[in-house]
């Protein structure tokens, strides 16, 4: 049995605990610990990724209790991929946070950061529905702390809405989970997958209610319209570096929808049938539209980035709602891409905000921007809008081509949305980086050239480029992953339900 599966949860938890105990040490020590943890997490994620690639899904029976009685972690290609994505982003963002001195601006940045990673990895790895709730809460509460990090004019009040709305979401999650348990008597996702096909007809109505409620929970996390209202205020007011890390948090909603939509409530399940698809597709299209319109109508760069994040979730959910191997593979590719692109955009926005004091889309004084930042904006915008040569374009092609068939509406919305986003990004970029207002005082040169921060940002762009260049192997890998999701027998078998571990 490989204990490595728990390490993405255990390692950040341990480091966070040590960071709490070591809170009076110098920032250098804390940075070293946090960075080492991120590197370690990346290494472990890589190992898990390769294990998941070469071997069938593997279960980790916590407490050595047999499934479904104890909690089980599952390493399959999908969870390995999401953990790897998290670890990569975590590494990049922590480098940026250190490079931009963000971690000095408040207390406990690194401890909260590690807890955040613990929560995210835990959510991706768990195969227990209630445990998913617990790790949702871990990642959420850590995100509250990070979101408030360093204070800010409207940060706390925006944070209040974020917390309050998510508490409603958590309540809903609990309602759904209790309903699931009450009807089926189990919480293990594989066990549910086994049991639900034989559910008596008289219980179907209730399980459908649970399915819809779960989907709504994931939709809240994934910022699906009309459950997305929390996102603009939160992301636009969060520290840029935190918003960048949040790029992977919305993906948890997408991940969970995919997991539940293929494992627990697959399209061929009598009780729920096409429920997930029927709900997701229209909502996703509207989400994409709302996001794209927001990109065009945004008044500041952080807000623009927030709406770009909504649009990207729209695209992801459009792909997910297809519930075919092809659309799922496209969804996964786009998830990878949009995480990197979203993070890059938020980091650029952060650079701008820290340079100018705010990110309003208007001309700055002379000397505000070096060419490099404008170039990085361009790259991030290209990525977010889905233009070549970065991975967004490939992702969109994948989604469009996977959605062929009765797809006129999907295609139209996606292409028109892309058009609006191109307009929005071009407008924002030309206003901010090309225009300069000589009437304003010259913006003094930054105190530090922040090489680490720039390196992190360039790293993100490089990753998007790599995702493009290595699109062949990546899509092949994702195709196999998607195929596995629609044939979950290996996943279920790995749980060894009702057997002694």
């Amino acid at each position: 049995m490989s204990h490595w599966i728990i390490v993405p949860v255990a390692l950040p938890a341990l480091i966070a605990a040590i960071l709490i105990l070591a809170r009076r040490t110098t920032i250098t020590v804390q940075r070293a610990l946090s960075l080492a943890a991120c590197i370690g997490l990346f290494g472990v994620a890589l190992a898990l990724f390769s294990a998941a690639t070469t071997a069938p899904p593997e279960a980790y029976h916590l407490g050595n209790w047999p499934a479904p009685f104890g909690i089980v972690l599952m390493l399959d290609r999908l969870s390995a991929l999401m953990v790897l994505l998290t670890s990569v982003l975590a590494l990049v963002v922590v480098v940026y946070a250190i490079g931009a001195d963000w971690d000095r601006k408040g207390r406990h940045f690194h401890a909260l950061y590690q807890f955040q990673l613990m929560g995210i990895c835990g959510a991706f790895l768990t195969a227990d529905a209630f445990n998913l709730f617990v790790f949702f809460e871990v990642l959420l509460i850590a995100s509250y702390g990070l979101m408030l990090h360093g204070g800010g004019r409207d940060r706390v009040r925006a944070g209040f809405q974020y917390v309050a709305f998510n508490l409603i979401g958590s309540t809903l999650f609990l309602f759904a989970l209790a309903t699931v348990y009450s009807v089926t008597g189990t919480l293990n996702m594989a066990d549910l997958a086994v049991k639900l096909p034989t559910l008596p007809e008289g219980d179907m109505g209730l399980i459908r209610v649970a399915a819809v409620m779960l989907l709504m929970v994931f939709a809240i996390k994934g910022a699906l319209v009309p459950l997305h209202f929390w996102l603009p205020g939160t992301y636009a007011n969060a520290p840029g570096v935190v918003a960048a890390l949040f790029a992977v948090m919305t993906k948890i909603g997408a991940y969970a929808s995919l997991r539940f939509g293929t494992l627990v409530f697959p399209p061929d399940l009598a009780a729920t049938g096409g429920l997930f698809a029927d709900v997701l597709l229209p909502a996703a299209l509207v989400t994409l539209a709302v996001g794209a319109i927001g990109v065009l109508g945004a008044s500041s760069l952080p807000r623009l980035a927030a709406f770009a994040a909504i649009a990207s979730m729209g695209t992801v959910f459009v792909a997910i709602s297809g519930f075919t191997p092809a659309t799922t593979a496209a969804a996964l590719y786009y998830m990878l891409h949009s995480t990197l692109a979203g993070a890059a955009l938020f980091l650029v926005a952060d650079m701008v905000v820290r340079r100018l004091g705010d990110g309003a889309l208007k001309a700055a004084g002379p000397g505000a921007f070096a060419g490099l930042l404008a170039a990085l904006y361009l790259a991030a915008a290209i990525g977010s809008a889905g233009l070549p040569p970065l991975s967004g374009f490939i992702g969109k092609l994948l989604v469009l081509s996977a959605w062929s068939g009765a797809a006129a509406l999907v295609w139209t919305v996606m292409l028109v949305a892309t058009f609006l986003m191109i307009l929005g990004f071009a407008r924002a970029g030309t206003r901010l980086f090309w225009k300069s207002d000589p009437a304003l005082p010259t913006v003094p040169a930054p105190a530090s050239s922040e090489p680490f921060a720039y390196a992190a940002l360039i790293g993100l762009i490089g990753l998007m480029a790599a995702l493009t260049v290595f699109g062949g192997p990546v899509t092949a890998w994702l195709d196999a992953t998607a195929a596995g999701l629609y044939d979950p027998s290996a996943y279920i078998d790995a749980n060894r339900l009702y057997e002694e571990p």
Partner: protein
Amino acid sequence: MEALIAITIGALTATGVYLVLRQRSFPVILGLSFLSYAVNVFIFATGRVQTDAIPIIGEGRIYTDPLPQALVLTAIVISFGMTAVIVIMAIGGYLKAGHDRVDLDEDGR
């Protein structure tokens, strides 16, 4: 009994929802508390209720389902942590903004 519990959960939910929709932070927090009562009782109740069936082995002949209880314990603790955080946020927001409205204005949204 079941009907009474169902009505209670409904009322707790409705009270919570109504308060959550108010415009000031304090009632919203109270509303969230009510929602958490509601869902805690809901989890508990959907494990079916029994009197005199405490799930302590050896204490009786019948035991009520212990799992929902364990889930409620987790839920109570988590919602307590969340409440604590949102309370300090309400204070911070009020001290910085000078009012305790939950809606964000032009600049903040």
